[in-house]
């Protein structure tokens, strides 16, 4: 069992990484187009890690994660846009808190109503829910309807590279906090209950786990983080449109989770970075992005089915965990 101090170690790593990226940005070693991409990566990482909570740890298939992303983007976007009486810094915090709370409630309420559904049936309902949220948003006053919400005050102001450094910095901080909290959840008794429900819900109930409640809370928490990602999106792009949240987004995020490995947080992060960055890297090939996804997905599936590859992966992860353990030895 890792001590609390050891669990804080990755935060130090994250701070170090932040410093390195900042240096690359300030010195313009990292080209403009890549600097621009960083907030998107942070946003998508929160989406992928939170969806992994549902798909990888709880074992329920969700095809509607974008619904909660949309909820967060609109709630946050509208607060930033309309509550101009509040100082901007405070407004950002209010926007995040409100988006998180609304997404949490909607995510929990959604699963409460469909808690009897599992597997494919649940997947279809989540897909429908995503589209439902998108169309509801259009008729709510103040959202800008089909044209979308524009002129959202953005954090990213100033000249290059200051503008991108600002956008990246707050996105990064929120991403790190989100991942940290999700990892902590998984390592708690509630996280074990979530995985128990995934592995065998009958046995989980037989040892006193409230399976329905566990699923509802997990969906709510995953929605909460998707809502926070939505605020990042709204505040970084300054405009949100219902078209930004169609089911393709849910599928894209799901692909990141599947590629990175179900129940593997680090995998989700790496897969997200690759999938967001890849189209930029292969700039001209951007129109083939979905094709690349498909090929990558099939390749990974085939690789994962290969016993030699899985053995290799296990060896690597054992080595890494040994290394991490050796880092923590002698402390605390």
């Amino acid at each position, binding site marked *: 069992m890792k001590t609390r101090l050891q669990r804080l170690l990755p935060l130090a790593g994250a701070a170090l990484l932040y410093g390195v990226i900042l240096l690359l940005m300030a010195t313009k070693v990292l080209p403009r187009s890549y600097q621009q991409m960083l907030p998107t990566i942070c946003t998508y990482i929160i989406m992928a890690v939170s969806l992994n909570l549902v798909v990888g740890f709880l074992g329920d298939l969700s095809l509607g994660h974008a619904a909660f992303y949309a909820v967060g983007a609109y709630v946050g976007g509208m607060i930033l846009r309309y509550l101009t009486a509040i100082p901007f810094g405070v407004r950002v915090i209010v926007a995040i808190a409100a988006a998180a709370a609304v997404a949490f409630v909607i995510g929990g309420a959604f699963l409460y109503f469909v808690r009897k559904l599992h597997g494919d049936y649940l997947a279809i309902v989540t897909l429908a829910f995503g589209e439902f949220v998108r169309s509801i948003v259009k008729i709510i006053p103040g959202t800008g309807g089909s044209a979308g919400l524009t002129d959202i005050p953005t954090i990213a102001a100033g000249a290059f590279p200051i503008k991108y450094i600002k956008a990246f910095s707050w996105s990064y901080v929120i991403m790190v906090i989100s991942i940290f909290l999700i990892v902590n959840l998984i390592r708690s008794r509630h996280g074990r209950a979530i995985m128990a429900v995934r592995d065998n819900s*009958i046995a989980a109930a037989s040892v006193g786990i409230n399976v329905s409640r566990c699923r509802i809370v997990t969906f709510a928490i995953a929605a909460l983080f998707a809502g926070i990602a939505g605020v990042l999106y709204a505040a970084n792009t300054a405009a949100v449109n219902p078209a930004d949240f169609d089911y393709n987004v849910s599928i894209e995020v799901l692909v990141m989770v599947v590629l990175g490995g179900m129940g593997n947080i680090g995998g989700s992060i790496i897969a997200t970075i690759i999938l967001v960055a890849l189209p930029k890297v292969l700039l001209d090939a951007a129109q083939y992005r979905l094709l690349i996804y498909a090929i990558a997905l099939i390749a990974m599936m085939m690789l994962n089915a290969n016993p030699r590859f899985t053995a290799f992966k296990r060896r690597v992860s054992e080595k890494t965990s040994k290394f991490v353990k050796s880092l923590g030895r002698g402390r605390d």
Partner: protein
Amino acid sequence: MAMLETKNLGISFGGLRAVDEFNLTVERGQLYGLIGPNGAGKTTVFNLLTGVYAPTTGGFFLEGKSLAGKTPLEINRCGIARTFQNIRLFKEMSVIDNVKVGLHNAANYSIFDGLFMLPRYAREEKELQTRARELLDVFGLDGERDYLASNLPYGKQRKLEIARALATSPKLLLLDEPAAGMNPQETAELMETICFVRDHFDMTILLIEHDMKLVSGICEQVTVLNFGTTLAQGQTAEVLADPRVVRAYLGE
């Protein structure tokens, strides 16, 4: 008051009367056997007692409290824990985490405590770790605590299921064929462990088993089921010598 009492417990699946007029009294601290040929309805009795199925007739009582119609979750919280004939471990979780899931309700810290690793989380997790290791120790599994549950050999998986059930601090423990798939040596060890659990945890145990050596070795009383009805009931040695029981097992 008896630990467990069933009154005319019965259930039908469509036209099939899987369990009929099932009456049983298990006293506190007893080691009680439930035996019978394949398909006799033994597992169905366990499923009734743990709320997997709701009885179509009759009821049952734990220390006088009626539990019929309650959900598996409620019944576990009232004090009945079980193992499964077809092992149901949390396969992708470590051995110790399987036990810790059983200890879920032994801790009180909130999601919030866990999210921010607050002192209460740290303190209670430490306690859980100690308690889980103590339980694993009883079953000789402490050395394998970081293995994935699915990587344990079959016999140890059965033991882990018992440890997990015990982790919920039940009053009554139901074991569905705990020795299935074990060799004679493992079975002998298991018999000792079951007796140890009964004495050490002051447990009442009702177990289903086909291995007559185990049943005659540790069960004080047995009930024999056949085609859903009770064929015989009483002291183990007498019941096993009953010609009707022998006939039910060997066929006419």
